[in-house]
């Protein structure tokens, strides 16, 4: 996986299945475990974004082989995260990268895409019983939408129950504090770490 070799990841996953290793163990120790190593190497600047994304593709190749074993109860996850780019903004590369990294870390990501209205974030988080909403913005003009989501969450009495993490080029820790978001992710790996902390607290 660290070499981004999807064919080998598929071969080894198939081999593990044939050897009757429990699918949950293959997933957690093999695929997510491997991706955690990749994440650590990325954080230590030993490897870079293209390597991480090649590894993520390799992981998804293994995951697709495991999916049939989890049809009944669903794939075991670290938790659900509803993610999207805020209303008025169509930039999605940063959001996509966070989504890939969260999936690699074992979270179930519900990606709402771009141009997402505040109400939609909350509606889906409630419907899916997701403890975290992740929002991305690349424009200073669309950052205020993040505040709207935080306020709407307060109005519905869901603050604390549903945590909010924000990110994007113009967004800062200071802005996150100002609007009352629970966390700020300065890059995709940091976002994953922050989400893990939010879920632990939940």
């Amino acid at each position, binding site marked *: 996986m660290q*070499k*981004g070799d999807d064919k080998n990841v598929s071969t080894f996953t198939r081999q593990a299945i044939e050897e009757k290793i429990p699918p949950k163990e293959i997933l957690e120790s093999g695929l997510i475990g491997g991706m955690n190593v990749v994440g650590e190497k990325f954080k230590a*600047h030993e490897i*870079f*974004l*293209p*390597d991480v*994304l*090649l590894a*993520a*593709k390799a992981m*998804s*190749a293994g995951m697709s082989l495991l999916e049939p074993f989890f049809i009944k109860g669903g794939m075991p996850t670290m938790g659900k995260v509803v993610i999207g780019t805020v*209303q*008025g*903004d*169509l*930039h*999605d*590369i940063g959001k*996509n*990268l966070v989504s*890939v990294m969260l999936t690699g870390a074992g979270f179930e990501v519900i990606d709402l895409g771009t*141009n997402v209205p505040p109400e939609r974030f909350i509606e889906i988080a409630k419907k899916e019983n997701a403890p975290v909403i992740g929002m991305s913005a690349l*424009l*200073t*003009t*669309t950052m205020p939408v993040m505040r709207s989501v935080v306020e709407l969450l307060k109005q519905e009495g869901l603050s604390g129950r549903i945590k909010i993490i924000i990110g994007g*080029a*113009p967004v800062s820790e200071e802005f996150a504090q100002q609007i009352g978001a629970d966390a700020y992710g300065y890059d995709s790996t940091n976002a994953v770490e922050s989400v893990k902390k939010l879920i632990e607290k939940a």
Partner: protein
Amino acid sequence: MREIIQISIEDVKPARDDVLKAQGVPFDNEPSEKVQTLLKRTMDLFIEFSQPVGMFSEISIPEFEIIYRGEGLNEKNTPLDEIYRKADGLFLFAVTIGQNVSEKIAGLFKTNEFALGSMLDSFASLGADKVADSVEIHLFNLLSKKGKISPSKGISRYSPGYCGWHMSGQRRLFEFLHPEEIGISLLDSFLMKPLKSVSGVMVVGGKQIFDFEDSYPFCRQCETRTCRDRIETLLRESRTNNKKGAV
């Protein structure tokens, strides 16, 4: 003066090092064989899906004043506010690398080709800037032929959403320029579709007019600071020309 320019893909191919930098790969790091293959595959996709095109239209200073004022949301003091009043010529411009690239990027992410999608996104962003560079060069050559620009003069470009010029300035810019003619539309949020497009004003004038201190309040939030390199390049050219003149 108004023109639509079809641009060769050869002229807008991003440099390998620029793509790697955009992907967060340090300059001194030799990419793995896999990443090198990825670069090659992405370049092939970029060539296949890009449709670079640009346009410009001359505008007077009083006309531009109306466009620049826009919806009245600009920062109080901006470098452009100082610069355009001293210009010898102003040209609104819009360029795009096309919608097909954006659709391809989205498709790659959907099929778990994350690395290709992310790298093509970097190619497309850098490519769109290179389309703007091509239009700028084309304009310079055109003005040179007409004797309207001398070596002591230069061109620098500015876009809504940067350097204190509020994004809402796009509305009036679009009303004047009509970038729809080259397939660019403006969304309610003032974003352009295709996303990998650039619009703004090209200012023609004496190179010294483009120099400014990056001490405006909004400069603190700016992470790119590409203005520094551009100003330095323009002023360096100016110094070289002055020296040649002295000899």
